[in-house]
């Protein structure tokens, strides 16, 4: 490569092809859950309803984005031996912020998510991105990478949440202001199974409420994704 002596200064915020890729890659080719297999821990338990999954997705996106940003800003000042501790402190402070915000603005959902908010700290995706990306890249790009990974993670959460809530409870967004009741045995529901001629046989699938259902759904999502995207297939 012919490097000229006068190196052009890169603008602080630019949005080109590379940056766009940072945002879109984690949605499919490099999805945190189905491909990198990181951060499954803290999330699946909240997916039995859509609304908590959305809140969790937003919280995780916030934490990944800003922890990436701050770590990337500090990356030249962090000694190698103590980097884990420094990263954990950054993450833990951000998670504390999220926890306090949720506690003060939306107490019911805070109660519902309970320990899983705190578990964002040990969500491997946050730490994983810090190690893999933020320690080696400039702040703006790291920030985008954080948002992209948060979104890729959130997308899976919300898909799983939608499937589990529709089939398990017959509703969508239960607990939120835009609650929709779709199918169920009383008159509040859109399709009333007690006096409907077609849906009299329908009953909620209780398997979907169990934690195991999230496992099956993710397994099947991985299967679907890998059938389309054959380069991801495990050859070992």
């Amino acid at each position, binding site marked *: 490569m012919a490097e000229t002596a006068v190196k052009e200064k890169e603008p602080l915020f630019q949005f080109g092809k590379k940056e766009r890729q940072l945002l879109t890659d984690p949605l499919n080719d490099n999805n945190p859950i189905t491909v990198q297999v990181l951060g499954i821990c803290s999330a699946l338990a909240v997916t039995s309803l859509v609304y908590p999954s959305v809140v969790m997705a937003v919280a995780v996106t916030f934490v990944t984005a800003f922890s990436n940003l701050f770590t990337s800003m500090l990356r030249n000042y962090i000694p190698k031996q103590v980097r884990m501790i420094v990263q954990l402190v950054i993450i833990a402070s951000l998670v504390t912020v999220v926890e306090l915000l949720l506690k003060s603005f939306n107490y019911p959902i805070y109660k519902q998510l309970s320990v899983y908010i705190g578990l964002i700290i040990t969500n491997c995706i946050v730490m994983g991105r810090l190690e893999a990306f933020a320690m080696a890249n400039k702040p703006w790009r790291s920030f985008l990478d954080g948002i992209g990974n948060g979104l890729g993670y959130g997308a899976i959460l919300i898909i799983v949440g939608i499937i589990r809530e529709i089939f398990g409870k017959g509703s969508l967004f239960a607990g939120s202001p835009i609650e929709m009741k779709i199918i169920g045995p009383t008159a509040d529901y859109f399709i009333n199974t007690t006096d409907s001629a077609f849906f009299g046989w329908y009953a909620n699938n209780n398997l979907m409420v169990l934690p195991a259902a999230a496992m099956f759904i993710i*397994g099947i999502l991985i299967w679907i994704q890998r059938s389309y995207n054959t380069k991801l297939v495990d050859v070992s």
Partner: protein
Amino acid sequence: MEFLNTFIKAAFIENLVLAYFLGMCSYLAVSKSVKTAFGLGLAVIFVLGITMPINWVISEYLLSENGLFGVDLTFLRFILFIAVIASMVQLVEMVVEKFSPSLYAALGIFLPLITVNCAILGGSLFMVSREYSFSDSIAFGLGGGFGWFLAIIAIAAIREKIRYSNVPPGLRGLGMAFILTGLMGIAFMSLMGIDPAAYAAN
């Protein structure tokens, strides 16, 4: 009796992996062979069993309102818990390196990663939110660790066998591990009958 009850409940009925999805990252990554899974499982039992009582003392005597400082410091809980866990993991790492270099080599990167194993922090947070007593916290730590150990050994054994089966390409490896975990979760649910209270609640 209370001790045994909490232990069994934590190990079988409310298994950290199968009922709460805690520690899934290392659970999926290290479960390719029984030998490494065994080592990691032991390390998790050890770290959970130690950190849980320490974190109980911290949250009871340092962070609560009637503790040492007389101020409600619960917002420091995350940072202090994770600091305790990180230092304990460092300790375990040094011990393992000293006494079993082969195990140390086999565990490799996953030993330091116990720090970010959600089961450890999750256990401590569950302990706080369920208001366990001191002896209960020890039982919960050991029982939760034991349950995690059982789960990872079981999945590692199944994955070792399933390598010779003809699984559809898209499902190979990870996809199959997820579905197996789901099936194991359902199997563990049948143990709910051990605890009459949990059985009645369902």
